[in-house]
């Protein structure tokens, strides 16, 4: 399992170096979005309209942070469960989204889209939102402010640690990890 320090945005050459199980330390700009924001983005795509943010080469972090205390860039900011975004992710990947950060398994259509259009799915540590907030240097709402914790934010992150779950080759760390340690026949 390799460790890579990377800077956003992502491109296909970078993604081809990552294997499921690798640790990435991400620096640069990432976007955030969860259930309600994904629904709005995909509604726009289906109507043929422009998105409020450019997702090409970008990473979307599935997170709805707690409000920031005065003087802090962000509140607690760990990942939410990703399968709820499965209905929307393939359409965003087709438009050039290159990375997603969340926790928990993805559906086969999402895994297939990642393989076909080259994108990766990464896990951040669920339930470690206070610790993760230390890697987030700034956070600014860029769309859908009315959604509150679900608004789309642009975050500047520094050495944000994630583990590659699904790489561009169709591998899945969740399946492989459990298989390795299972004592059930």
């Amino acid at each position, binding site marked *: *399992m390799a460790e890579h320090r990377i800077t956003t945005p992502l491109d296909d050459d970078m993604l081809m170096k990552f294997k499921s*199980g690798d640790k990435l330390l991400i620096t640069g700009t990432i976007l955030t979005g969860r*259930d*309600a924001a994904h629904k709005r983005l995909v509604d726009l795509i289906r109507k043929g309209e422009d998105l409020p943010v450019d997702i090409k080469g970008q990473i979307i972090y599935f*997170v*709805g*942070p*707690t*409000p*920031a*205390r005065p003087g*802090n860039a962000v*509140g*607690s*900011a*760990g990942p*939410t*469960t990703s*399968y709820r975004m499965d209905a929307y992710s393939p359409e965003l990947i087709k438009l050039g989204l290159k990375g997603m950060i969340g*926790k*928990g*398994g993805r559906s086969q259509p999402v895994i297939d889209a990642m393989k076909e259009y080259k994108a990766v799915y990464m*896990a951040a*540590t*669920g*339930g*470690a*939102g*206070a*610790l993760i*907030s*230390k890697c987030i240097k700034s956070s600014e709402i860029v769309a859908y402010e009315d959604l*509150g*914790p679900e608004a789309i934010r642009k975050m500047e992150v520094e050495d944000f640690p994630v*583990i590659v779950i699904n790489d561009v080759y169709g591998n899945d*760390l*969740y399946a*492989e*990890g*459990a*298989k*390795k*340690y*299972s*004592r*059930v026949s």
Partner: protein
Amino acid sequence: MKTIDFNVIVEKVKDICMAANFELSRDVLDSFKKYRDSEESSAGREIFDQLLANAEIAKNEKIGLCQDTGFAVFFVELGDDVKIEGGNLIDAINEGVRRGYGEGYLRKSICHPFTRKNTGDNTPAIVHVDLVPGDNLKITIAPKGGGSENMSRVVMLKPSDGIEGIKEYVVNRVKESGANPCPPIVVGVGIGGTFEKAATIAKKALLRPIGSENPDPELNEIEKDLLKRINDLGIGPQGFGGRTTALAVHIEMHPCHIASLPLAVNINCHSSRHKEIIL
């Protein structure tokens, strides 16, 4: 008859909303250390180190342990010799939640089921009240995250399914949940009662300290067997593969109808948060 002022309840509820979301109890932290030492996967051990570091930051800086600061779920034991002055209990709890989630910079996660419009202050709380003898008012908050709640189920088994049927259902539920509920998890199991009773006691079972024995020897043995079978699944911390999928299995049981065998599995993430006050 003891009189308790409405505003005292509001203030205390406000305090425990924040405390529960900033500070893990000793039993949870001890279980992280114990399982970190026995975990064979290096990725798994690193997760435990992160969870311990996260708990330190949350406590010292008063930041939510998790960004999902939960549905505010309360278990209340109201003594029959207690009179609340200046308002009613449920209003006091909701006002305490409103203030605690506001002043504590906690996330407001409650919305309309169809429109998804946020209520804006994390109310209404879910409040379970038991009337008990005496003049104490005991209020326990157990903030419940959505990710692990979504993996929970109630099922009406057949009496012929028996203990083995119960065990199979619980283990399969954890297996199918995989990495979604943020393992290592705590599994609350409610056996018996009715459809809603099973769910309520499953949630109540989550309040028991991790590492404590079930006072019923038969249930204690079932808990130990379930914990072993769950940890044999290999899901591991955060689902990356490893020995620690659950920190504990806690069972509560209640008599049931001759036709039924209700079973509820309430899954909690590792951020097993609860705080209580007695007035």
